[in-house]
């Protein structure tokens, strides 16, 4: 009987327990439903950024939204987003209100693929607080940068931001610094690319400035330290946004940006194209794309491309186009310091960095253009010379290639460094040293082709044998000398009567490739038409090149 009672009591207790459990489970289930709903809601909200009204306004300006840009940049379906739920943490100035919270805040971050290769991306969302940088925004960017560094994959930043989140004060500034630090840590480890697609002002400009390449979108992007209003109040200069920091300014005058594209769509298509030239990190070799262009293709037009008169211009870009695979050449800074040409191309499928003097252009730094409209006279004396801007442009490009295992091919036709007070006062000595330094420091395969002039110190600088060029060629038209015949004769035969004969003798002796060839300063004098075949063959051999440098903390380039 007692046992029966006990059993009943246990049964009663059990039933109580069971009902309690049911209730608990029921409440748990309903909670789960609401969380799922909330997740979905947040995701849906995040996808809309700052809301439809702001998206429409963005479109009206001819700009795409942060997510639309990512969808064009990356392979379809490859984007994996992170931190979609991150919100800003500011409680001041009413920022804590629900209407001022946007899941993901003002930046979209994650990883994805371009033509199948991994890349990390952040895309600032102008529709949320004008893309302004909050602590959370910076933290999101830092997170993907950290992972990109550990994994070894490039970072692409799509910049479209009004600046610091003023409501957050110093936290926003701290956020910038966190990003700067990572830009520097990643420098030379993974390629970093910035595409400026809207405003980028104040401290924000230094992140793109620290990255390897800065591209801009024409008419809709600006980069400046202080805007036109501040400029007006401080220096009393009247200047528009476009004049102060538009794509034209930075790609032609300041050299801050490396290329400008027509609009968002054009820029993103080009960025995909550009990305294919780059290795994923400093641990990876230069990419080799499938190539249909025969590596031993002869280029007959090169045999006549260099004019017989040594003062006559020709276009070095024509030589580059005809030597590289399929005439594809992605030029970097095509409108800045045009006396030097730099850019990426492929040889037998492998990415190479091209550096070339441009005999068609004298120097941006002198007051007249090479084709002077009034006189219509070409100034051959300065054609293709090195000056401050071209040295810096070349040096930065050479260092990028060296950092990322991209072989360097240098086409030389250089009459020397540009003379003049402007250049000397501007520091041509230390700026010129940068290019010299960069070539000397580079340990990637280096192939050099002297097409015509290689005069004076500029000869040494342009990836000469003496700076450990691996293969140095001269075309039959090459003149490797201290200076041109006229100048040399004026010094050697000062006061002599028969200057013409002396000049002829100098030309006979020095204005040809032999003095360098007999000393082994060029490895061979080659028929120009065979240039492509020779370079492709050399690059195959040089692919296994290894150079050991003595230990150092870091080198000290003359900045």
């Amino acid at each position, binding site marked *: 009987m007692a046992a029966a009672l006990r059993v009943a009591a246990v049964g009663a207790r059990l039933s109580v327990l069971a009902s309690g459990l049911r209730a608990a489970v029921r409440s748990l289930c309903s909670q789960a439903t609401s969380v799922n709903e909330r997740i979905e809601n947040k995701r849906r909200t995040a996808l809309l950024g700052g809301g439809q009204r702001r998206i429409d306004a963005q479109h009206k300006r*001819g700009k795409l939204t942060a997510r639309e840009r990512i969808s064009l940049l990356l392979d*379809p379906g*490859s984007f994996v987003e992170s931190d979609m739920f991150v919100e800003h943490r500011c409680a001041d100035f009413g920022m804590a209100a629900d209407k001022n919270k946007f899941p993901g805040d003002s930046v979209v971050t994650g990883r994805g693929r371009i033509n199948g*290769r991994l890349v990390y991306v952040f895309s600032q969302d102008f529709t949320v607080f004008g893309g302004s940088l909050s602590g959370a925004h910076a933290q999101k960017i830092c997170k993907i940068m950290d992972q990109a560094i550990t994994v070894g994959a490039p970072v692409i930043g799509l910049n479209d931001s009004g600046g610091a989140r003023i409501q957050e004060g110093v936290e926003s500034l701290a956020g910038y610094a966190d990003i700067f630090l990572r830009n520097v840590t990643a420098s030379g480890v993974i390629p970093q690319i910035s595409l400026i697609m809207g405003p980028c002002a104040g401290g924000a400009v230094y992140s793109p400035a620290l990255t390897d390449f800065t591209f801009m979108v024409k008419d809709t992007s600006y980069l400046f330290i202080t805007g036109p209003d501040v400029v007006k109040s401080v220096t009393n200069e009247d200047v528009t946004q476009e004049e102060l920091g538009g794509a034209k300014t930075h790609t032609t005058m300041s050299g801050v940006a490396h290329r400008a594209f027509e609009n968002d769509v*054009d820029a993103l*298509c080009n960025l995909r194209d550009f990305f294919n030239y780059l290795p994923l990190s400093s641990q990876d070799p*230069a990419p080799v*794309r499938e190539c249909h262009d025969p590596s031993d293709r002869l280029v007959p037009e090169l045999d006549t491309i260099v004019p017989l008169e040594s003062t006559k211009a020709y276009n070095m870009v024509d030589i580059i186009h005809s030597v590289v695979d399929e005439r594809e050449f992605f030029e970097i800074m095509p409108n800045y310091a045009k006396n030097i040409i730099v850019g990426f191309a492929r040889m037998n499928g492998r990415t190479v960095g091209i550096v070339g003097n441009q005999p068609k252009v004298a120097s941006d730094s002198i007051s007249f253009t090479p084709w002077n409209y009034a006189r219509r006279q070409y100034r051959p004396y300065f054609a293709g010379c090195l000056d401050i801007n071209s040295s810096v442009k070349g040096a930065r490009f050479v260092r990028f290639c060296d950092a990322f295992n991209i072989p360097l091919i240098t086409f030389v036709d250089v009459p020397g460094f540009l003379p003049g007070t402007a250049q000397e006062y501007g520091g041509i000595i230390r700026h010129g040293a940068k290019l010299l330094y960069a070539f000397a420091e580079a340990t990637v395969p280096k192939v050099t082709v002297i097409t015509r002039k290689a005069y004076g110190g500029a000869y040494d600088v342009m990836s000469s044998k003496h700076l450990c060029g691996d293969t140095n060629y001269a075309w039959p038209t090459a003149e490797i000398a201290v200076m041109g015949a006229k100048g040399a004769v004026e010094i050697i035969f000062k006061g002599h009567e028969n200057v013409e004969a002396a000049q002829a003798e100098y030309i006979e002796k020095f204005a040809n490739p032999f003095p360098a060839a007999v000393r082994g300063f060029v490895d061979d004098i080659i028929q120009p038409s065979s240039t492509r075949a020779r370079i492709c063959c050399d690059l195959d051999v040089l692919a296994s090149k290894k150079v050991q440098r003595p230990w150092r903390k870091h080198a000290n380039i003359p900045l």
Partner: protein
Amino acid sequence: MAGFWVGTAPLVAAGRRGRWPPQQLMLSAALRTLKTFDKILVANRGEIACRVIRTCKKMGIKTVAIHSDVDASSVHVKMADEAVCVGPAPTSKSYLNMDAIMEAIKKTRAQAVHPGYGFLSENKEFARCLAAEDVVFIGPDTHAIQAMGDKIESKLLAKKAEVNTIPGFDGVVKDAEEAVRIAREIGYPVMIKASAGGGGKGMRIAWDDEETRDGFRLSSQEAASSFGDDRLLIEKFIDNPRHIEIQVLGDKHGNALWLNERECSIQRRNQKVVEEAPSIFLDAETRRAMGEQAVALARAVKYSSAGTVEFLVDSKKNFYFLEMNTRLQVRVDSGIQPGSDISIYYDPMISKLITYGSDRTEALKRMADALDNYVIRGVTHNIALLREVIINSRFVKGDISTKFLSDVYPDGFKGHMLTKSEKNQLLAIASSLFVAFQLRAQHFQENSRMPVIKPDIANWELSVKLHDKVHTVVASNNGSVFSVEVDGSKLNVTSTWNLASPLLSVSVDGTQRTVQCLSREAGGNMSIQFLGTVYKVNILTRLAAELNKFMLEKVTEDTSSVLRSPMPGVVVAVSVKPGDAVAEGQEICVIEAMKMQNSMTAGKTGTVKSVHCQAGDTVGEGDLLVELE
């Protein structure tokens, strides 16, 4: 009877095989007599000089080339054993510079001079200079040149030999007003031409007094710069004529015979564009009558070489003597090779193409194929026009005249007009190319730490823009076969997809096409040469095309207020200065390029803001000449 051939110029050269064998024998006999020379100087440039030099090499004769300074590295200079620079670029200072050429002859001790054609080949003064120095002139003797090289004299001679001539004024025209008076007497339309000229230079048609004055001025300028002789003549312009020429051969014994004709009616600015033999128009009787008159003329001038007698033939098969070219028409090749500069100072002809077939249809088909396979980069050319002419229904029927081009293309030639199915083919080929490029971009071959995970796209949904119209395309591929749906119609495109080759042979639903991808940009722009014409397409993925709608239109330069040079050339005259008021269509300046003077006119009525050029300037394509406000 294997001998229908069609030749097109500026791009025209290969063999007239199996035609006129006896005449070919005679030519080689003529060449053998030249073997007596050790060294000859070739007083010409370009393809003609190359041809002469090549023949000399075969015969073991050393050659001396002459060249202007801009031609220093051209092909004929490289081919010759020696070369002498005879002056700066303008022909009057180089290839027409008799003193310099005589000097070169003395210096190189050349025993003979081959003048080629054009330049000094018909210059009696030059022939006389050579005779005085005891240098042999290879070509007709001085008398024949004198007689035939001068149009006025040749016309008088032709009349005497009872050759049909065109009514007109046989004398030298002094000034524009006299030109107008004569033109009125003859009755409009009239033709104004350089007395010393040939090849269409310095030749203009005038339909009224105003045009006569203009034509007189321009023609005399051109005549002066090309031939160093500004004399002009005026004659009745025969409307809708055909241009048919007869070749004649004469010897020193007074024998002369005629060869069959070639028809050169398709002309642009009086320069032959397409030549054809035999003419589809002539009957045996007319052919014989023309041949006999040509022989009569050759006999009359005691012609002892090979030459060409040109006739105009009207719709009733009446024919009129036009001129006689005292020169050898040799088979011609290209005078350029990759890397050659094509100078603005000389003739625009860069190459000739000749095809032949057992009948006309076959010759034309081969011509179309050959034109599709021509790879030309770096210069503008007229392949599109040539290809269009030879497939034009009027041309195919033989219904042509020298006015053919201006009749068929009254507003100028704008390129091939695509039929619906051709358009679909073009879009399918372009889309397939786009996808092939996209797929290739995913083919990385280096040893990578990280796997490449290619996007899995079964169907490429594309939006292709052509002539401002957007077409929806879906493409998918199975190996090298692309299935493409263009606006709903399905096509199959097969090719090797060699993306580096300048020529891409493609089969679209079994139709063989040769296309050339001339340029390609990451932003989707592509230029494709298809059926001879270059088409610009823009290809975007559907997503990119949808987003592209938000992109703003860029503001473009108002082209009516700026005048830019349409081609590289030399400014001959500038007729305005800043502040001048100009009317739309008024002449602003004249640019000479390829030996043609082009009058540049105002795009709108306004005031001249600034002038950026002066007479004598060399200008490049797109250079700013004058700004209006």
